[in-house]
């Protein structure tokens, strides 16, 4: 039952963050638009991972496995970006 209350809190937070991200998209903050949008998306993604996917209560090995995906993704983006933008 305790978990289910957490789920409710998480879904409400996700919906509020969605409203915030849609609202901020109507204002022009220049370069900060993308920063704000990605920051909010990442908070939402973390909430989904930690609570809905139970990663917070999962064993360490599964946490490392999943986080490794983002490390590889960062390498993928970083090296491709270096080639496209810094050459």
């Amino acid at each position, binding site marked *: 039952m305790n978990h289910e209350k957490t789920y409710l809190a998480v879904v409400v937070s996700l*919906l509020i963050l969605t409203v915030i991200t849609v609202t901020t998209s109507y204002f022009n903050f220049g370069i900060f638009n993308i920063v704000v949008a990605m920051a909010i998306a990442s908070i939402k993604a973390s909430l*989904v991972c930690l609570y809905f996917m*139970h990663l917070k209560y999962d064993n360490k090995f599964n946490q490392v496995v999943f986080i490794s*995906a983002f490390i590889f993704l960062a390498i993928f983006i970083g090296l491709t970006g270096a080639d496209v933008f810094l050459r």
Partner: protein
Amino acid sequence: MTKHTIPSHFDDAKQAYEASKLGVWLFLVTEILLFGGLFVIYIMNRGLYPEMFHEASLHLNKVMGAMNTVVLICSSFTMAMAVSRAKHNDSQRALKLLLITFICGLIFMTIKYMEYSHKIHEGLLPGIHFSFDEISHPKAPLFFSLYFMMTGLHGLHVLVGMGLIFWVMVRTRRGDFDESYHTPVEMTGIYWHLVDLIWIYLFPLLYLIG
């Protein structure tokens, strides 16, 4: 009621469960890298043609995108609740929650279908099929290639997820799951949340940059 038997190559139920879960997490890593390839193409091209992305994005329907975001978030919630109910021997409510999750998937795909048919009608299409006059930038078809590829691959995942939810519903109804065995419900849940997670990024990147 069919009682689940633990495959003989596992020591006990816990080990079998942990092995299944590790398998799903590894699969999700490959999924992130699969979508990652598309995100990389997106980031590089947005860096090269920022004003084109800005202009082309204005022709996506923000309201429909936001509606789909809400639908997916709610479906993630009902899915998490269904897993919890299945764990607590409450198959009846688990089944109802799974059905709501499935219907949310259906609503998502219906909205997607409406968006796609509108884009096809207007000629906002990838590559050489692009035939829309109001965007002058010569690279604009690229945005719609990315739009259809990213949302299309994501939509395919929604359909697969709906198939899995349907299968889990049939098994829940048959009484396959209880507090000692509910691995398929939980694994389907983790997969469904990943589908939500990817949409959380697709929505601002495609719809909200205008």
